[in-house]
């Protein structure tokens, strides 16, 4: 049995009928075809599915789509400029080689943005703490931390 759901995704009003058991990540990927949000572990450990709900980073594989009713969801597709110019945090990941296979990257970027929203100039220690819920199996994290630091600087307008 489906129930009606309405919410905002990347600034657009979305209405759909969903089964209550639909996970937010499945709604985003399968219903909305926004496949930048990844499913890694599917057990709320790896953070590849991280999106923002009302501006706060959450693991969308561990949340029902109906829990996001009437709320504003932002996915990785919602952060670049309309003309495709990368968000400064995305650009920093590219510039600083903050990824190898790239699977964890959308979640890393969304978590990094959540951190910078509350701490515009985070220390490396704070960055590591804030990325505690995001696993990367390629990089060893060094360049991810460097990228987040650089992304935060770029976002506050300095280079």
């Amino acid at each position: 049995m489906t129930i009606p759901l309405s919410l905002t995704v990347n600034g657009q009003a979305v209405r759909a009928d969903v089964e209550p058991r639909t996970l937010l990540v499945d709604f985003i990927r399968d219903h909305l075809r926004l496949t930048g949000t990844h499913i890694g572990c599917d057990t709320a450990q790896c953070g590849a599915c991280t999106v923002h709900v009302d501006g706060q980073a959450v693991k969308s594989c561990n949340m029902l789509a109906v829990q996001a009713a009437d709320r504003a969801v932002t996915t990785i597709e919602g952060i670049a400029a309309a003309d495709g110019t990368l968000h400064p945090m995305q650009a920093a990941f590219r510039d600083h080689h903050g990824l190898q296979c790239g699977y964890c990257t959308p979640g890393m970027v969304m978590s990094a943005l959540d951190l910078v929203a509350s701490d515009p100039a985070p220390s490396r220690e704070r960055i590591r703490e804030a990325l505690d819920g995001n696993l990367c199996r390629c990089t060893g994290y060094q360049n991810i931390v460097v990228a987040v630091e650089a992304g935060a600087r770029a976002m506050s307008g300095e280079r």
Partner: protein
Amino acid sequence: MYAFNYLKAQSVADAKSKVAAATDGKLLAGGQTLIAAMKLRLAAPSDLIDLGGVAELRGVKAGNGELTIGAMTTHADVAGSADVKRRIPALADLAGQIGDRMVRHMGTLGGSIANNDPAADYPAGLVGLGAAVVTDRRTIDADAFFTGMYETALEPGEIITAVRFPVPQRAAYAKFANPASRYALVGVFVAQTSGGVRVAVTGAGPVVFRVSALEAALTKRFVPEAVEGIAIDANGLNADMHAGAEYRAHLITVMTRRAVEVANA
């Protein structure tokens, strides 16, 4: 995940009647444990009654010598609350150590204590501070609330509405976290209160417990050295691939000492 009916509660009274009307209804708080359990089919409720929209269950109220925290207040909100940081900084610190950033944005105080995971952080905070759990029908002392592994004194359909935390003279939480899960391998909450020192341990046994030998020593002298040489009996403590019972017993004294150091800092 098996299919279920989803119902959104408008108020505590509404949640109560919806749970009562369901065959096997469960309350949905932040869902950080329940949804994972449902995905694994370890739980298969007929109905989920979502408390997410019940405003009366959220928020921190500072009162006369105590803080009252609504059951649906998230870990992130407790960790970031100016009132909690000022009145009981140890509790804000504890909330900020639960899970990871994303989990803390969803997980709630009420959800955590209703689930009563043996390695959860909040049970140590509640028992350590001598808190009181307020439900839709009564008030339960933390000492009597956590009754066993994943077991609480809650009756079927009973809804936690808030927790009242008395403000201690000083307190601290020291956690030895499992490096992968961030659950407490051993977590010790120490509080110096007007009624003496309380020491509550999570992660080490099937359910949170107090250690009277440590409490007596620290009530006499609230300094880290006071617990030197106090051996904890490993009998009945948890043993798994991460730590044996003897190691956990050892960690209880170590984490107690660290908590006292922080409380006195």
